[in-house]
């Protein structure tokens, strides 16, 4: 049993202490420190800044008024009721239903986790993509892990993950869909990778969301095209067709390309 007594004289010193204490489990490339500080004070400061009305209006946009409270809620640093009360003090609950609904998602996943802990790493249902689980790769390709896929928007979102430990929810769905459907990698490989980096990573929300994208916990696979990314992220992220060729197609073209064995009904042939 080792006691960890980090140097707390500055954030940099603390980082050095963490690097030293966990040197055997950290890779040499793992040098990024998140701009999100831990702790209840940081959580409270962030809570003071939420704008639930703007959130409901803009939450799907990359630059939307998302709260970034998830790392604090995930670790129990903030109680969800405190967040709900803060939000409803700013606006009547019925006008910010989407905000409260999103807060509830996490507890829905936690409840499912408690009822079915075995579902965390196993396919809950078969893929509805026309492929069997065996046709997906077990390991995450290196270019994805490093954010060097050559697809500008995807690499941008992955760099958010690697540099900050935080991703906008919409970009999580894009990256998860890219991993599972465009590269045909098992959702479990992507889920493990996210859990390594996401400050708010918890097995329930993370893995069940990956299963939702993969279609092993949903009626159909989630996929997207460049037009969709441009609509929600175009002002902040390179969404030029020249730098995102793999995504630049209609939904019909992509569906035929990604799921060639899937019937028109959405079921496997």
């Amino acid at each position, binding site marked *: *049993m*080792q*006691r*960890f*007594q*980090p140097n*707390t004289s500055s954030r940099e010193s*603390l*980082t050095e202490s*963490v*690097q030293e*204490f*966990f040197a055997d*489990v*950290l890779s040499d490339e*793992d040098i*990024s*420190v*998140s701009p*999100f*500080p*831990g*702790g*209840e*004070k940081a959580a409270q400061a962030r809570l003071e800044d939420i704008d639930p009305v703007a959130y409901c209006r803009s939450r799907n946009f990359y630059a939307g008024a998302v709260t970034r409270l998830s*790392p604090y809620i995930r*670790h*129990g*640093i*903030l*109680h*969800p*009721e405190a967040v*709900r009360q803060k939000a409803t003090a700013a606006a009547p*609950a*019925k006008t910010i*239903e989407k905000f*409260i*609904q999103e807060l*509830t*998602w996490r*507890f*829905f996943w*936690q*409840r*499912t*986790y*408690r*009822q079915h*802990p075995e579902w965390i790493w196993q396919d809950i249902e078969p893929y509805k993509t026309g492929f069997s689980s065996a046709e997906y790769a077990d390991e995450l390709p290196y270019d994805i892990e490093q954010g060097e896929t050559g697809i500008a928007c995807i690499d941008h979102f992955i760099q958010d993950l690697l540099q*900050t*430990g935080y991703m906008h929810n919409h970009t999580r769905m894009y990256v998860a869909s890219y991993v599972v459907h465009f590269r045909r990698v098992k959702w479990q490989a992507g889920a493990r990778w996210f859990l*390594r*980096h*996401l*400050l708010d*990573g*918890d*097995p*329930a929300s993370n893995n069940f969301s990956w299963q939702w994208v993969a279609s092993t916990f949903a009626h159909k696979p989630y996929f997207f095209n460049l037009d969709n990314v441009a609509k929600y992220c175009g002002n902040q992220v390179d969404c030029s067709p020249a730098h995102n060729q793999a995504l630049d197609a209609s939904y019909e073209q992509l569906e035929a390309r990604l799921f060639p064995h899937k019937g028109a009904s959405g079921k496997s042939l």
Partner: protein
Amino acid sequence: MKETALKAIIWVHEDALRSSHPVFFDSGNATRAFIFDDALLEQKRYSLKRLQFITETLIEMNVPIYRGDTCACLKTLAAETGANQIRTADSPDPAIEQCATNLRESLDVVVVKDDGFLPELDGEFHRFFKFWDKVKKPLLS
């Protein structure tokens, strides 16, 4: 009651890093401990970002941080301090329940639930919106 609380160790884990969590109520000067479990560190391979975030939170909470085998550490701390009870926050994580089961062989283990957020509800819901329809009323009031 008070005597039991004074002999307790509060096992703090990453699902409940809030000083106002009920696990800390009436705990007197009970020893607190957070343990980075060696086997879980190896399995999860948390990034520097995650390890630092958790460490910063624990420092602010003034919770001593250890590294090793969680159950073995807690048993050692109990022996060192003369504690006969481990108190920990409720979590859906099976690893926590597994360790609690192991500890129960030699110690009293109390699992403390957090204050509720959602109404208690029976049954399973495989899709969120059916669940939402059941719980939304009090949340939107």
